[in-house]
């Protein structure tokens, strides 16, 4: 059960926040987040809790598939330090 929804933070009060996805708002909790968030930030919400902030730059790069090398770019931007041949 990995269902997670990207939502934008609109208001913050303590450990709770009002977040919206395209016209639908709900109350979510921030206890599990490991970073500070501000109004306007996007987070992934799972089971009523924000579990991570969405990195806008990375999001854009994922969409910009069409680099010279092909639709996966050079591939190295997806690598972790664990690459093994």
């Amino acid at each position, binding site marked *: 059960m990995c*269902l997670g*929804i990207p939502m934008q933070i609109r208001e913050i009060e303590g450990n709770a926040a009002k977040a*919206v*996805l*395209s*016209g*639908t*708002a*709900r*109350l979510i909790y921030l206890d599990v987040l490991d970073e500070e968030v501000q109004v306007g930030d996007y987070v992934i919400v799972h089971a009523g809790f924000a579990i991570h902030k969405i990195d806008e730059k990375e999001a854009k790069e994922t969409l910009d598939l069409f680099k010279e090398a092909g639709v996966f770019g050079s591939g190295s931007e997806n690598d972790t330090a664990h690459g093994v041949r």
Partner: protein
Amino acid sequence: MRGKRDRITLDHGGGGRASRELIRSYFLPRFANPFLEKMDDSAVVDIPSGRLAMTTDCYVVDPIFFPGGDIGMLAVNGTVNDLSVQGAQPLFLSAAFILEEGFELADLERILVSMARASEEANVSIIAGDTKVVPKGKGDKIYINTTGVGLVQDGLDISGSNAKVLDKVILSGPIGDHGIAVLSQREGLAFDTDLRSDCAPLNHMVEEILAVTREIHAMRDPTRGGVAASLNEIAGQSKVGIVLMEGAIRVKDEVKSACEILGLDPLYVANEGKLIVFVPPEHASHVLTAVRQNHHGGDAQIIGEVVADHPGRVVMRTTVGGTRIVDMPLGEQLPRIC
């Protein structure tokens, strides 16, 4: 001053003076027409000869007031629509009420006003009614049953078993508004939306369609179970397959996002003011134009067609180019939506 005058009591269901007083003060003024005013045991009407269509429905929606409507409006429009999709011109409705002891009379008034307004828009009269009261705790505020009768013109053969291969499938507008609007008022779900129910009478739209052509094979107003249920029913009854284009099915962004959050599929969410029409291809674009010209059909689309393959099955081509089936919904996804 709050007193017994503000709420329904058991006396109101007793059939005696209190009952008659309730009918005179609340029901008659709202549903004013010569039949009801007679206060006979039955209404006797003159009807033109022809085929009579009859339908009945019970309304138990919770909550009884929701954005865009209420249980009364549903009760009128729902039954009007069941007649309309059979090709019947709705004539008369009956309305029976089961009220819980303690139900606020102000709420009853609100519902009756709403029913009067809905009847006016649909151009039907409520000519018979009944009221019963059950003890507190034995009923949830108000349940309504409406039965409707209408007249089917000659030359119409509209039925769920009549869809034909090559028919185009027209859907009159975006789906899922009603179910989400009702859910948004439920406790424990905690989401906010500006969505309103799409509850509306469709009889005028049907008249306008039949003015274009009488060769309509099947029609449905998708309610509980959504568009998926209605299409599967017709595919099963007509023993045909249906192919849909996901991209043609309109869903408002607010419905999409609420469904994402709740884990629902808009195809299975209830509507109360949408029409599905199965029409032979040569008439499809004219019918589409007629639907779009109606106040409730501005965003109508051709969403698919009937095929000979996979009889009884509804299949959908997804926006990414794949295929999936649209299965019959299982049981109670969203309790007490209608």
